[in-house]
C-alpha cells in the first residue's frame, strides 16, 4: 500500500487560518469541485443537471446559488458545482453519470485552491486586490477576475464572507496577495 500524506494547497498538514485586522483569512479544503458545460443545442439539459444536483435553480450570469451543494456561473452555459468533499469526493463521476452524455463534466477539485475572507472591511480589501467592486455588489455575486495576475473567482457567499478560488499551483502567491491586502487595511 502506498502511504501518501495529504497536504493542503499551501503545503500544510491542516488548512491555514489567520486573523488579521478583524478579518479571518482561511484556507478551505473541504469542498469538491466539478465544472458542467452545455453541449450545443442541449443548454437546457445542462442547466437542469446543475439545478437538479444543487436542489436550487442553476445560477444566472454572475451569480451563485445553493447551500450545502452549490454552483456558480463561470461563463455562458457553464457552471462550477461545489459539494462537501466528505460525501462527494467523486463529484465529477457522479455528475457525469447523471449527465448521461447530455452535458460535459470535468473534474476540477485539485486544480484550485480556496481562501475565505470573513468580517472586517472587505470592501477596502477588494479595492486593493481587483476591479470587482463589492460596494456595488450583493450577496450571491460570483465573478471571475484577475488578482495579482492570477485568474480567480470571487464569490460573495454572505455580505461579509467572500471566497476567492484561484489556481492551486499559485496558492502561495495568491495567499500572499490576500494577506498583504488584508494587512494594508486598518
Amino acid at each position, binding site marked *: 500500500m502506498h502511504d501518501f500524506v495529504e497536504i493542503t494547497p499551501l503545503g500544510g498538514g491542516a488548512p491555514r487560518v489567520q486573523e488579521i485586522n478583524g478579518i479571518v483569512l482561511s484556507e478551505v479544503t473541504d469542498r469538491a469541485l466539478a465544472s458542467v458545460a452545455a453541449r*450545443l443545442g442541449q443548454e437546457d439539459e445542462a442547466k437542469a443537471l446543475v439545478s437538479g444536483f444543487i436542489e436550487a435553480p442553476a445560477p444566472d*450570469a*454572475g451569480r451563485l446559488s445553493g447551500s450545502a451543494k452549490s454552483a456558480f456561473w463561470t*461563463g455562458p452555459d457553464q457552471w462550477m458545482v461545489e459539494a462537501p468533499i466528505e460525501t462527494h469526493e467523486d463529484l465529477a463521476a457522479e455528475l457525469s453519470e447523471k449527465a448521461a452524455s447530455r452535458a460535459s463534466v470535468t473534474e476540477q477539485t485539485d486544480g484550485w485552491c480556496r481562501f475565505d475572507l470573513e468580517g472586517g472591511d472587505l470592501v477596502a480589501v477588494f479595492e486593493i486586490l481587483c476591479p470587482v467592486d463589492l460596494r456595488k455588489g450583493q450577496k450571491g455575486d460570483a*465573478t*471571475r477576475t*484577475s488578482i495579482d495576475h492570477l485568474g480567480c473567482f470571487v464569490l460573495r457567499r454572505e455580505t461579509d464572507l467572500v471566497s476567492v478560488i484561484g489556481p492551486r499551483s499559485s496558492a502561495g502567491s495568491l495567499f500572499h496577495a490576500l494577506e498583504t491586502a488584508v494587512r494594508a487595511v486598518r
Partner: protein
Amino acid sequence: MIIHHPILGPRDSAEFTYLGDANLIHRPDWQAEDALAQFTDYGYQRKNPAGVHRELWFHEQGDRSWLVVTRNTVTHEITKVELARDVARAEGRDT
C-alpha cells in the same frame, strides 16, 4: 478603457485580450475550389482603418467569452459590444 460586456456589464479592458479583425470568425470552407486563395486572404489580408473597426476581444480574465467590439481606432470610442456566438448565430451559423 471600459468594455461593456453584454452579459456582465462594464469591465476593465485589462481583463481582456485582443485578437484583431472580427472577420476572423468567417473561416473559409477548406473544401472550396479556391480554398488556398481564400485562406491566404483570411490569414494575411487585413484592413487597417483609421475609424470604426469591428474586432474580436477575449474576456480572458473573466468569463472567457469572445466578443465582437465595434471600436473607433482613432478615438477609442466603443459603440457596440456583442457576443461573438450571437453574431455568428445571427448570420445563420449553427455554432
